[in-house]
């Protein structure tokens, strides 16, 4: 009973968050799924750390693969959208762009823009 009630409460809370767009919403979305805000913080830093493997630790490149650190957010988001749409020539980035969501492009753009 306790579990059911909790599920119901969370479900209601989620509907409220979605419909009311509360300012202090305790949730964030990953691929359309609701999460506590801390989960999205961890998610963003972890997917950003995936980028480090090719683009260099903290997005700071020492070679041919472009740096991400300190790039303009809008530039990074547009680049990902263009890769996905096939508007921009890529080697691996179209394959990556297709695996991530628009909100993840935004989160990554913000993350790398903040690294100086």
């Amino acid at each position, binding site marked *: 009973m306790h*579990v059911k009630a*909790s*599920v119901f409460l*969370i*479900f209601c809370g*989620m*509907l409220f968050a979605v419909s009311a767009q509360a300012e202090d919403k305790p949730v964030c979305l*990953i*691929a*359309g*799924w*609701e*999460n*506590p805000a*801390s*989960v999205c913080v*961890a*998610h963003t*830093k*972890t*997917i950003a*750390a*995936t980028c*480090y*493997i*090719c*683009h*260099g*630790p903290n997005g700071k*490149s*020492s*070679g*041919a*693969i472009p740096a991400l650190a300190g790039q303009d957010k809008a530039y990074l988001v547009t680049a990902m959208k263009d890769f996905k749409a096939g508007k921009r020539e890529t*080697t*691996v980035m*179209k*394959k*990556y*762009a*297709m*695996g*991530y969501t628009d909100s993840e492009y935004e989160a990554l753009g913000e993350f790398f823009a903040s690294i100086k």
Partner: protein
Amino acid sequence: MTMQRRDFLKFAGASLAGALASASAHAKPSSGRPHIVIVGAGFGGATCAKYIRMWDPTIKVTLIESNAQYFSCPMTNWVLGGLRTMEETVQSYKNLPGYGINMVHDTVIGVDTDKRSVTTKDGKKIAYDRLVLAPGIEFMTDLIEGYAEGEAAGKVLHAWKQGPTLATSQATLLKKQLEAMPDGGVFVIASPPPPGRCVSGPYERACMVAHYFKQHKPKSKIIMLDGHFDVVSKGPMFKKAWKKYYAGMIDHRPYNLVTKVDHKSMIVTSEFEDVKADVINIVPKQRAGAICKLAGVRADSAGVWCPVNGITYESPKVPFVHVLGDSVASNMPKSAHVSNNQAKICAAALVEMYNDREPNSYPIIGSTSYSATSDHTSGPIAVVMRYDPDKEAYIRQPGGGASEDSDEINFEYNKTWFDHIWADTFA
């Protein structure tokens, strides 16, 4: 209805995480902060140690590694091709203590998963709150008759795992044998069916050895005895490169699993034929590293690989033991990139749980691997896999796959990829 179902699943995931977090709370040592012991300092283990410390410097991390230096497998094919030296494939561990990692050079010989401690060859007993195993692969040499004798005689090499010293590393020995081989000789490379470490590696190796032969021994031949049904990774790219750069030099024979080798007569026997060789390179079938057996986590149906929870990388079989990298039973490629990426997901989950926060139930693995086809061309494969807690599996996202061609720009990216993954893991 969809939302409701998803939310229920979400809640179920959170409960599990909550249970894990409260279980780990009981495991806290008297100092108040957890001690995580990681065994194996490769792309999985070293990355996990470094990122736990970067994301929460209050967590105590001990990293146990047998070797004094890291011997990379990526780039050893380039050594065979004469593009790089063996020295350039070795990475120092000198930077890791700077992150507050307690680096121990020793070998774990026992694991007590009830009392949660490991014992080492030097007689140390190290207690853990969580144990992370990242040992890489172990070869099932007993599946090939004569392999062990041939390896002991120095006539049969895998060169699929390097170290423990530069002089004894099998890529060093293989390079010497190729250099000593007369022009017109036959190099046999045999590879097992998947799953195994670096599926595209044997085909890159054929390219690199062919590149070396073309410069120095143009009458020589390469026979690939492939346990796969085809060139299963980057197939079109490799086939084009073989035709373009090494016409008539590489004889690829699929469905040709090796069962026997006789190092005295230098005959390699597959399920279909006997092949006479001058230099023999056989990559045997593999399983999770030996310590996974000690810890009881080699728990898939065949007792070969280690199933894990895709959120935390904890073994569902043995609580408080996590597994990373090539030893994991999964549909992910067994690559350096995946090991490094899994390590970060595991590190993030542990950091969240030890700070009483829910771990992320939707991690994403990206896998990129480059293969060189010549001394100036490479090509990539890239795939994104998202964890679905409903299916309890990583799902391949559409659009992933290999390039059909290798080229100069990807050769440059390949070199940068090496530099960056090493820096991300060890610097």
